[in-house]
């Protein structure tokens, strides 16, 4: 029989990947269908939180990438229309979170950085996708919106940079909060598993 740890690795990747996939298929499709703003950021933050919790429960390097691959595969098999964008996002987020917690494990600090980077990725991917599909003028529109927001919010004049900075700060803080919650959930889960074993 092969080493049981290998099967445990794939077992954790399968169940946590399935849980992430279940949320992506149901909540993700629901949020996208309702056109709720920043749904990508919320889903990225949730994914990062789930991966951080997984890494806390099963602290083996690579398990988060495996869970991301499983989740992307589940998304591919789902009946939803658009799957390529979410699949790319899932894979990129799992790689980012794995890279962030690689050295120090899933701590609250690394969890917050991982959540923030996953949330930032979702914004970046949206911008890149829109630029690819709609062309470069979309950047001009965003610049115009940023300038207008700067005037409305009475931020210091900086060609829209202050508004973009404020927006990205909100995204980073939101993502970091998801990461911290993920670390707490992982810690609480470990404690209950130990209690159940004893």
């Amino acid at each position, binding site marked *: 029989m092969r080493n049981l740890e290998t099967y445990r690795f*794939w077992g954790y990747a399968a169940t*946590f990947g399935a849980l992430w996939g279940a949320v992506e298929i149901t909540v993700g499709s629901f949020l996208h269908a309702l056109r709720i703003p920043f749904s990508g950021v919320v889903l990225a933050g949730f994914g990062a939180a789930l991966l951080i919790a997984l890494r806390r429960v099963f602290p083996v390097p690579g398990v988060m990438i495996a869970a991301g691959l499983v989740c992307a595969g*589940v998304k591919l098999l789902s009946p939803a229309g658009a799957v*390529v964008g979410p699949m790319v996002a899932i894979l990129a987020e799992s790689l980012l979170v794995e890279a962030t917690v690689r050295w120090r494990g899933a701590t609250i600090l690394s969890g917050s950085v991982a959540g923030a980077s996953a949330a930032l990725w979702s914004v970046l991917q949206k911008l890149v996708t829109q630029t690819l*599909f709609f062309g470069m003028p979309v950047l001009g529109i965003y610049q115009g919106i940023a300038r207008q927001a700067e005037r409305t919010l009475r931020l210091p004049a900086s060609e829209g940079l202050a508004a973009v900075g404020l927006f990205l700060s909100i995204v980073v803080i939101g993502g970091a909060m998801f990461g911290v919650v993920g670390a707490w*959930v*992982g810690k609480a*889960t470990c404690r209950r598993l130990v209690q159940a074993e004893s």
Partner: protein
Amino acid sequence: MNFGRLSLLVAVALLVGLLLVPAVWHLPIGIAGWWILRWGARDVHRNLGRPWRWLQVLFVLTVLGGFFGPADTQWLSVSWSWAGVLAGCTMVVRAFALVSLMSLITSVLPVRRWVERVQHPVLRRLIEVVVVAANLVPVQLNALGVASMTLKERRPGLLNFPLRIWLLAVHSALHAAMLAESVALDMAIAAHNASDQGKISS
């Protein structure tokens, strides 16, 4: 001409048209391309999203373009951008052409055949695990639903909502961890039985 070829032709014609034709004609050629796909390649057209959604995108982008583009026109004593409106139309037609091209490419790619041909042990294992995970999705959703209902009965009210979310998150992680152990055991037993059967048959 089959659906695939027609949609490829329309998408490429739209992209070339955007390069060669003046901006004022981009929306009419986009509508013509949509009309040809709508009546000539219904299978492809079904994957392009609802017409209402494209109209929404067109409205948003032309309004934003007119508002934020270079002010070159006066209308009802308000200065707005005709160039921005045209740029909005061009963006939508370009996106429509690219989406139809992408939709055709993804529908033509033989993903299932590629998956069946994979021989690499790690990739094969990953495919098996994805199939297991896809079967676990309804189980996870059911468990989430039951846990959510139980928590709502035990701790009702809006004030308890954050606590309910927290307990649901911990419960889900705990359930996934316990399920992972049983899935790992099942996989190990299945592999052991498969190797035993191999020995018997050989």
